[in-house]
């Protein structure tokens, strides 16, 4: 089981309590779709994704980005058992959505860049290390029910 120090818990809750989920969620998802274009394959039913501007203004992408951040919020509130918290989500992504689990890491990387750009020099190496540890646990939990 993953162990969290008090400092790490405080860093993660502090980062998330300062986020506007409606802003950061869509930004991370949009970035992922532009930087790693093959991820667009999962959003074929979302409408126009033909270019960066279309992606940035697509309301379905906006809504989904926000949804993803609210999903992350559940992990923040259950840091000691993210694996169990995400069991159903993992099954959903594996059996229904058929998402290649490698893509979880790509979205996590894009979220890291969004947070880095937001926090600027406040995104210190120690904070980066803690944030990446948190996202690594999330990514692992999402992949746990794949077989």
């Amino acid at each position, binding site marked *: 089981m993953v162990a969290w120090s008090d400092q790490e818990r405080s860093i993660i809750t502090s980062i998330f309590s300062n986020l506007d989920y409606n802003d950061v969620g869509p930004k991370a998802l949009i*970035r992922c779709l532009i*930087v790693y274009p093959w991820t667009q394959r999962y959003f074929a039913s979302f409408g126009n994704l033909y270019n960066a501007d279309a992606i940035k203004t697509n309301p379905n992408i906006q809504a989904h980005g926000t949804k993803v951040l609210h999903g992350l919020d559940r992990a923040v509130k259950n840091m000691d058992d993210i694996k169990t918290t995400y069991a159903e989500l993992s099954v959903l992504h594996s059996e229904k959505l058929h998402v290649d689990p490698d893509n979880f890491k790509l979205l996590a990387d894009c979220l890291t860049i969004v947070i*880095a750009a937001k926090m*600027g020099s406040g995104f210190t190496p120690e904070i980066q290390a803690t944030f990446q540890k948190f996202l690594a646990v999330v990514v692992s939990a999402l992949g746990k029910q794949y077989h």
Partner: protein
Amino acid sequence: MVKWTEEERRIVRGVWEKVDIDEIGTELWARALIVYPWIERYFGSFGDIFTTTAIVNNPKLAALGKVVLSALDTAVKNIDHFKAMYASLSRQHYEKIKVDPDNFRLLAECITITIACKLRAELNPQVQATWQKFLSAVVEAMSSQYK
């Protein structure tokens, strides 16, 4: 061979112009050594590299930061044929320093995050995509002499 559009060349140069070599040279090591601590194995003779303060004040790391960024500068200025120029660097890292080439990718990620903290909203999705394409080419060039 990697192909670059005029737009991509402009973007890479534009990002690079905003990089302060002295400032970023130590920050990238701080991120790499704190976030991926196993990298410490390559710096046995560098003295204290175990806290952010020690890292940013370490003269050997500062000097090495300048060396790395000056090599990146060569790649920016010779974007069409730096792979050949990097052959001896690659051989040195393979035969003499014995660096696991996966670490080139980790260092590249730390460089991107350092730049994201500095450039913030300017590192928009399209700029990030182009910058990462450039760094992937650099990582590939650094790995080219490994067998």
